[in-house]
Each structure stands twice: as structure tokens, then as C-alpha cells.
């Protein structure tokens, strides 16, 4: 509880006490008035002051003004009727303040809950100077410095381990509770918690560029991108309050004047003014205005607890409408770790063939090239390679030890007019030709992620109509993966540019619902941007993914996609519930108030009660573990 909240709570309790005392003392006239005004002013003086200030600044329709007019009006009626019944005026003010207090408490509480969830900001870093550990601000650590992380501490900056090994708890980043074992030469990401060993880490990034800073920045700015529901509500609130206030004025004046003009008896001024005052109490838009952003905020918080970062409420809204999910294959549905499985049709020694291939591919960072280099297993002398020429999507032609080596897929062989032998094995086939003569091929295959099949099934269960896979890989591999996973459509042998075109075609075929693209963010940035919503996988360490995607899955688990969709749907369901519930109850109470059925008490419920219920409902969005 903040100081402000404590003070308010004391005022509320004091006012209730004074009110009970006033009710117990039998009194009439001016004494009674004064007795009841004490609790009224104790609880509501600030509202009255704010209302006056508001009028001076030309802000007539704010809630303080409404409450001031409604309560002062009710007191006025009580004086005029000489009923001495001030209860309603005090109750309205009291309940209004209780409602405000509850709202500020609930919002503060969920704000703290969510920020605790994201409490991954490291406050310090240790560096070793002359054998002694010195504590420094992580901002001041330069790239390449060796930092020391002890058990129980957070890794403050991204880097590579140069000494020690430990189990890292990555739960704050990925939602994954299983610790990760790391040792020398492993890359570590800031924000992980070292559980048991002392680590010496050579930093590879500055603090501001480290994963933890980027994630925090992203999350802190997340709910600033407003969703359409939020825009709708703020526009609605702008119209709603003035409309209700003007209606209240009409209600107070028009029916009595009409009765007077027709001359059919008592104009019943008191009754109509009372009804108008109940209108004013109902007119406060706070339940709506608070519950919608709070629902989104809680939804985003809940998602980040599950290892899913959502960049804005608008994305959560779009995600809930997704009915088509397009996947990139490599790194998304498969591990992206390739292994050389076989070498076929070779005339020369297999190891020598591999050596030529590895040398030709030595400059490439492509996962396939890396697997060939890994299979070769020896250090590569790049001086032996010259005239490297890479054709994107086809392969590489280079001169190795004076021989022209062409390494790539069948398209490359066709373009160079080399006869090649097709392979029956499932996998990526890399053909090799030396000096224009075919020398055989290497079969490389990738593993499907263990949760991939489950992920597709889960998506289908949550109502995704179409699952599509796009890949640059050959048809045989693509079809095989798609069949194993149960995907609806496959497009294979696509060049990077083709993927964008394919997504555009799919987008134009889309009649209703939205299209999500899931990629690993390494070379999918344009596609991630083009889809209705871009989801990047395994973002730990990939800056491109964090920037290009709208939603980032912190670990490599494709199962999180359906979870993210379910979280978004739950959040949106809560948002709609709140909109319908709050507007509905208010409208019903307005009608009942106009007809004279609803009294001030019901009006208080329509205002404060609805707000409390809407806030409680909004907080439900935070609980996502069972989804």
C-alpha cells in the first residue's frame, strides 16, 4: 500500500465511523445537517476541491465534477424536502472513494506482480582486478572484459564462458524450468541465473545491447501499442460521459416543464432531479477505461511468464484472430542442426570428397555448409580456396587447389550442364562436381523437433484451419517432414524472395481471420514483417528476430505457438466480457434510473461495483499456466 492509499483508507474508515455516530444521535434541523456533513467532508473534500479546479480549467465532465454535482444535489434535495436524509449523498461519496481506493490498490498490485515477473534486470557485474572481485555497474563494462558470476547471481551481460561450468536457470527468459548445463566455450545470455558454479565470462556485447536489456525494453514498451479495443473504449468514453450528462440535464428539466405546460398537475421537480442525479453517478466511464488496458497488460504479463514476449496489445488482438499458420521449416519445425548421413556414388575417396566440399563451403555460414565443415572435422586452410562464387539457393562454385569445385543442389548441376545422379534417400542432397565431372553427392538431414508434431496437433485443436510449411529445401525432404507432422500444405524449393511472394499469395487467399508466420528470424525478417503477425522462435541471442517479429518465443519450442494463441484468445475473451458487461450494466441502470426504478444505491453499484468486478475479471488474464 502506498502512502496515498493508506491515507485514503484511514479517511474512509473515519468517515464510516463518523457516519454511524451521526446516525445514532437523534437530531433535527441544522444540528443534524452539521453532524452528517462531517463524514461527508472527511471522505469527499478532495473531490469537491478537484471539481472546483476542474471547472476553473474548463474540465466540466470529469468524474470529480460528476460526483460533486450528484452528492451536492442529493444534499440539496434533502434540505429542500426537509427529510434530513443525507445518507445517500454520503453513501455515494463513500462508495465512490472505496471504489477508487480498490482500483488503485488492484492496479498497483497487478503492476507489481507483472514487474516482479519481469524482474530480470541485473543490478551489478563482478570483475576480477588483481585477484579481487570488484562490483561495478554493468553499463560500464566494456566488450571483451572478463566478468565473474557466482552461484545465485544473474548473468549481467551476454558472453562466452572461458572458465568454469554451471547449471543455468533460464526460467525468467524462457519459462523453461529445466536448468541448462553450460561449460567452457558455451555462449551465455544475460538474465539467466547461475545456480551452482563460478563462471568466468568474456563479454561479447555491451550491457545496452545484451539480451536482457533488449527484452526489458521490449516488455516495458509493450502495452504502449494500443489495440483497437483500447482505442474503441477511449473514444467511447469521450462520447459517453458528455452524452449521459446532457441526458441527465434533460431528465431533470424536460419532463417537469412538459407537465407544467400541459398543465396536468404537479411537475414533481424533486423526483426528476433525483433521477438525473442517479444518471450522473452512473455516467463515470472508469470501469471501462481501466479494465481494458488492465486485461491486455495482464495478458502480456501472463504470456511473458510462459516465455512468450508480445510487443503490444494490438498484436495480442491480432493473434487471437489467427486461423492460418505458416511455418518456415529449418530451425522452426526442425532442429536446424544438419548432419552428414551418407556419401553416395563417389569415385574418389569419401574423405577427400568431403574435404573438397568443406573447402568450397568454407566461407559460408549456412547451416548446411556448417554441417559439411563439421563432418570434415579438420581445420580448414582457406588459402587453398579462391574465386568463391555463391548463388543464393543453389550452391557454391570455387577453385580449390587449382580445380573448379561446384557444390550445390540439382539446379546448380543443371545450370552447369553436369549429369547428376538423383538420390533416393530423404534429406538435403548436395552434389559435387570437380572440373565439370560429377563426383557424387552428400546426404544431409535435419531432425524434426521432438515437440513439432504435438505443436501442430495442438494448433489444430485450438481451431487453426490451415497449416502451411515453406522451405528452400528439396521437395522430397519437405514432403516427408510435412507428412510426418500432418501439415496441410507444403511449398518447397523456394528462394528467400519466393517466401515473401508465397506469403503474399496466401494473404490474398485469406478470406477471414489472420495469417501468422513463424520463423527462426535469421533470414525470415522480410516474411515476418509481411505476415499479419510475425512470430520469431528461439530468440535468445538473435537480435534480428527480436526486431522483426511482433511476438517472440523465447525458447525453440513450437508448442508455445498454440499456447500463445490460447493466451491471446483468453485475454480477448476477457476484454469483450468486460466491454459488454460494463456497458450493458450501465445502460440497463440508466434506463431503470430514467424510469425511476433504480435509486442511488443501484447507481453506485453500476459505477463502483461494475468497476471492481471488471478489474477482478481483468486480472484473470494473468493466469496462463493451465492454458
Amino acid at each position, binding site marked *: 500500500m502506498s502512502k496515498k492509499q493508506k491515507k485514503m483508507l484511514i479517511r474512509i474508515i473515519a468517515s464510516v465511523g463518523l457516519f454511524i455516530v451521526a446516525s445514532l444521535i437523534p437530531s433535527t434541523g441544522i444540528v443534524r445537517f452539521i453532524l452528517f456533513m462531517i463524514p461527508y467532508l472527511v471522505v469527499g473534500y478532495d473531490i469537491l476541491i*478537484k471539481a472546483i*479546479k*476542474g471547472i476553473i*480549467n*474548463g*474540465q466540466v465532465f*470529469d*468524474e470529480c465534477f460528476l460526483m460533486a454535482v450528484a452528492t451536492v444535489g442529493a444534499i440539496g434535495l434533502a434540505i429542500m424536502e426537509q427529510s434530513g436524509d443525507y445518507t445517500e449523498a454520503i453513501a455515494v461519496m463513500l462508495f465512490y472513494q472505496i471504489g*477508487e481506493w480498490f*482500483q*488503485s490498490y488492484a*492496479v498497483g498490485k497487478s*503492476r507489481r506482480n507483472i514487474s516482479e515477473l519481469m524482474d530480470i534486470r541485473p543490478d551489478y557485474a563482478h570483475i576480477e582486478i588483481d585477484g579481487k572481485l570488484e562490483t561495478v555497474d554493468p553499463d560500464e563494462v566494456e566488450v571483451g572484459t572478463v566478468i565473474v558470476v557466482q552461484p545465485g547471481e544473474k548473468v549481467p551481460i551476454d558472453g562466452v564462458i572461458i572458465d568454469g561450468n554451471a547449471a543455468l536457470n533460464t526460467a525468467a527468459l524462457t519459462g523453461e524450468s529445466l536448468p541448462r548445463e553450460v561449460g567452457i566455450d558455451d555462449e551465455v545470455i544475460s538474465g539467466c541465473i547461475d545456480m551452482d558454479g563460478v563462471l568466468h565470462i568474456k563479454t561479447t556485447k555491451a550491457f545496452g545491447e545484451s539480451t536482457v536489456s533488449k527484452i526489458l525494453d521490449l516488455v*516495458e*514498451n509493450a*502495452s*504502449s501499442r*494500443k489495440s483497437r479495443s483500447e482505442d474503441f473504449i*477511449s473514444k467511447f*468514453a469521450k462520447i459517453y460521459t458528455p452524452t449521459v450528462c446532457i441526458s441527465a440535464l434533460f431528465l431533470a428539466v424536460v419532463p417537469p416543464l412538459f407537465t407544467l405546460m400541459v398543465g396536468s398537475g404537479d411537475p414533481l421537480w424533486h423526483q426528476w432531479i433525483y433521477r438525473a442525479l442517479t444518471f450522473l453517478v452512473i455516467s463515470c*466511464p*472508469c470501469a471501462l*477505461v*481501466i479494465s481494458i*488496458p*488492465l486485461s491486455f*497488460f495482464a495478458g502480456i504479463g501472463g504470456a511473458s511468464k510462459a516465455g512468450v514476449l508480445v510487443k503490444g496489445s494490438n498484436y495480442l488482438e491480432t493473434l487471437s484472430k489467427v486461423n492460418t499458420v505458416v511455418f518456415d521449416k529449418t530451425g522452426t519445425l526442425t532442429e536446424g542442426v544438419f548432419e552428414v548421413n551418407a556419401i553416395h556414388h563417389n569415385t574418389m575417396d569419401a574423405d577427400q570428397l568431403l574435404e573438397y566440399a568443406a573447402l568450397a563451403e568454407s566461407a559460408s555460414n549456412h547451416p548446411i555448409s556448417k554441417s559439411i565443415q563439421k563432418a570434415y572435422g579438420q581445420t580448414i586452410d582457406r588459402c587453398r580456396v579462391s574465386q568463391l562464387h555463391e548463388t543464393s539457393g543453389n550452391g557454391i562454385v570455387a577453385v580449390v587447389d587449382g580445380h573448379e569445385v561446384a557444390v550445390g543442389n540439382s539446379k546448380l548441376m543443371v545450370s552447369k550442364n553436369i549429369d547428376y545422379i538423383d538420390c533416393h534417400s530423404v534429406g538435403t542432397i548436395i552434389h559435387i562436381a570437380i572440373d565439370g565431372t560429377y563426383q557424387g553427392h552428400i546426404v544431409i538431414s535435419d531432425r524434426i523437433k521432438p515437440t513439432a508434431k504435438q505443436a501442430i496437433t495442438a494448433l489444430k485443436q485450438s481451431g487453426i484451419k490451415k497449416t502451411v510449411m515453406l522451405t528452400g529445401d528439396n521437395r522430397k525432404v519437405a514432403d516427408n517432414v510435412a507428412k510426418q507432422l500432418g501439415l496441410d500444405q507444403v511449398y518447397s524449393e523456394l528462394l528467400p524472395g519466393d517466401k515473401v511472394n508465397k506469403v503474399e499469395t496466401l494473404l490474398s487467399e485469406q478470406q477471414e481471420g489472420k495469417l501468422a508466420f513463424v520463423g527462426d528470424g535469421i533470414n525470415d525478417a522480410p516474411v515476418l514483417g509481411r505476415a499479419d503477425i510475425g512470430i520469431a522462435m528461439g530468440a535468445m541471442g538473435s537480435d534480428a528476430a527480436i526486431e522483426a517479429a511482433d511476438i517472440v518465443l523465447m525458447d525453440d519450442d513450437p508448442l508455445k505457438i498454440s499456447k500463445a494463441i490460447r493466451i491471446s484468445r483468453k485475454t480477448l475473451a476477457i476484454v469483450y466480457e468486460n466491454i459488454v458487461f460494463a456497458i450493458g450494466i450501465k445502460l440497463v441502470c440508466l434506463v431503470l434510473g430514467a424510469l425511476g426504478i433504480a435509486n442511488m444505491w443501484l447507481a453506485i453499484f453500476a459505477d463502483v461495483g461494475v468497476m471492481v468486478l471488471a478489474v477482478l475479471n481483468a486480472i484473470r488474464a494473468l493466469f496462463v499456466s493451465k492454458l
Partner: protein
Amino acid sequence: MKKTYKIEVDCANCANKMEDAAKHTDGVKDCTVNFMTLKMIVDFEDGVDPKTVMANVVKNCKKVEDDCEIYL
């Protein structure tokens, strides 16, 4: 140029009003007030001095919601 400021305000509708008031201040291209994180993100027009603009933003916000605070 974008800058983020910490704010203090009690109700969500008041936060919306502050956003509106800030948006209509000279030198402000766009502004978002995030009630949940209590932050105001101001996008300034080119070539203006954020300090003088922010002084006006504070003045305008105080007009619509007396009980608000912007930490410059």
C-alpha cells in the same frame, strides 16, 4: 525524437486525458500514455527543445488533471 517519462496519475481515464493534452501541445508530434506502466512516451517534432516543450506538456496536463505528475 522519442523520450520516455515516468508519470504519476490515479485513474485510467485521466491518463487518456493527459495523452490528449500532450498530443495537442506545440512541438509534440505524437504521444502515448501507458497507464499500466505509468509512462509517457513523447515523440517530439524535429528541431524543438524537449525541455521547453515538456514544460508546456506539464502545464497542459495539469489543466486536464490537477492531480498528475510528470517526472522530467
